[in-house]
């Protein structure tokens, strides 16, 4: 079994083969076992969340999905997933709407427009943004972004757009704390920006140069090459990158908890406080009683979050499959 067996050709080949193959079988099964462990891990996560949420699913049935109740008072306990679920989806979609144009701009800049010496440092800086821990985004969001959003976005937009008929109610809010759905969406947008930008940059770089060169040869400008050649060639992967960002936004916890206001009630305006699945779990789970209906409801919420983000991430990975090869 020692290293010296390599150069010694004189050792009996039969013995060597059995020792070698025993080691081979062992090592292969060690690796395969670790692989199976990962599969088992995902299965176990789904199963524990489902089993933990089972009492809540039994108690409330399908009503759990569209009830906006959140009443922990003993004897009148009633929990529903509607508010946190809507909060999760609305903040994530708003974050995508805010973040994708900027991410596209960064990716376009880094692949086509910027001079070579700019690309590396700027690309690295954007990637470092992804490394900043989410709690830091939360603190920065609470102490820097929330006052900014309140003074320069909520008030002017609320006054001008709030007067519009029908859609006005979305912008009209008398929330004075500043923590709101919009603030959460903005923090999320900044957090997913580097992930989407990095994916887009990588797929843009994969376009065969010949295609781009032929378009340039016809006299196309850089924007025309992007619109007519690069984007059509990469659109599936681009959507995959956006879905990856969406999957991250759905499950983000600490940053959102800091800035969304954690109010478990229906919000009519994007400048009202609300909550998301991840932040309601982070806020209420540690203080809930072991085995209580509340704890089970929170686990049921966790199961729903897992289901939603699993679907989004699976679609993202399927769309990005050509890039992964």
């Amino acid at each position, binding site marked *: 079994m020692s290293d010296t067996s390599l150069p010694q050709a004189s050792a009996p080949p039969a013995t060597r083969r059995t020792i070698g193959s025993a080691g081979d079988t062992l090592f292969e099964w060690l690796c395969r076992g670790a692989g199976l462990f990962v599969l088992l891990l995902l299965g176990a996560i789904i199963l524990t969340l489902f089993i933990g949420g089972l009492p809540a699913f039994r108690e409330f049935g399908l009503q759990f999905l569209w009830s906006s109740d959140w009443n922990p008072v003993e004897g009148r306990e009633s929990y529903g997933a509607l508010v946190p679920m809507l909060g999760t989806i609305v903040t994530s979609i708003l974050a995508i709407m805010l973040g994708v144009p900027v991410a596209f701009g*960064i990716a376009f*800049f880094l692949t086509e427009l910027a001079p070579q010496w700019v690309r590396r440092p*700027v690309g690295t800086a954007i990637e470092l943004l992804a490394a900043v821990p989410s709690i830091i985004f939360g603190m920065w969001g609470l102490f820097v972004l929330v006052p900014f959003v309140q003074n320069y976005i909520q008030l002017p937009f609320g006054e001008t757009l709030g007067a519009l008929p029908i859609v006005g109610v979305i912008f009209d809010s008398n929330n004075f704390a500043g923590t709101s759905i919009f603030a959460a969406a903005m923090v999320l947008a900044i957090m997913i920006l580097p992930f989407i930008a990095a994916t887009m940059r990588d797929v843009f770089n994969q376009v065969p140069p010949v295609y781009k060169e032929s378009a340039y040869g016809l006299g196309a400008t850089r924007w025309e090459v992007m619109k007519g050649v690069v984007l059509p060639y990469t659109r599936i992967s681009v959507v995959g990158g956006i879905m990856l960002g969406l999957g991250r936004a759905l499950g983000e916890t600490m940053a959102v908890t800091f800035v969304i206001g954690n109010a478990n009630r229906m919000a009519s305006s994007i400048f009202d406080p609300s909550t998301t699945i*991840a932040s309601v779990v982070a806020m209420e789970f*540690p203080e809930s009683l072991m085995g209580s209906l509340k704890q089970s409801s929170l686990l049921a919420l966790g199961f729903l979050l*897992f289901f939603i983000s699993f679907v989004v991430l699976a679609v993202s990975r399927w769309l990005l499959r050509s890039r992964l090869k």
Partner: protein
Amino acid sequence: MSATIVSTPSFHKRDPAMAAALNRRRRFVDGLVRWLCIIATAVGLFFLASILLTLILRGISSISIITFTTEFRPTTYGDPTAETGGLYHAIMGTLVQTAIGTGVGTPIGLLVGTYLAEYARNSALGNAVRFVSDVLLSAPSILVGLFVYQLVVLPMGGFSGIAGGAALAILVIPVVVRTTEDMLQLIPNTLREAVVGLGAPKWKMVTLVCWRAALSGIVTGILLATARITGETAPLLLTSFGNNVTSFNLGNAMASLPIAIYQQANSGFPDLIDIAWAGALIVTFGVLAINIVARLLLAGRK
């Protein structure tokens, strides 16, 4: 959206005035998009700069040697003579739990990555493992906290440092899997053939040649995973919960830097918020430093 847009200008009847106007418009749009992209990049960099500057401006004034050597103390607001607390308990807790997370998660991740790159490049089981690992990489970390709560905290009857370490280990695995597999796939097959041609068994080829050839890449992955879990808050909230005193007992609730930041930032007392900023500064620069070292390691290899 189709390629015809590109060729439209040149194939119609030539009208010099119209061609010039069209040309101007195309140039204008191109210039506009270019400026918008530069602004977008500036916006991205602005946010990074804003976060780092805020951390430095608010953190540096409250950071001192006391921050590293003293435990948590309740608020001393309004009493300038009182001694302020520090984050020693949280720094120790983070070191212990991060060490457990990295120590347990790395070997598993390394073996899985090896399995994917060396044994199961195109098998059905390999594809399933790869898919699941990629999903775990981006899955909400708070759900890992809920999972470990059900599996470890409930049976043990309370929050514990070992539960925190377990949650972090689960987060380490997919990061190490991804980098290990990527790095092993970069190794040319001729190298493998040369080793096997000498008569070495496959496990020796993998451990003595492939792992060694991919070493800097694998270490990069481990560093990135460590950086990621150092700043993790959500899963620890449900597993090790946080503690106001220094504790090395893995069976009890254990403090950690992110949790201490979270609790003190939301305490409402200005002096505790200052300590939270100091903690935020320590965590962020620690995490960014690990990231930069990891990048340099990988850049030095190429």
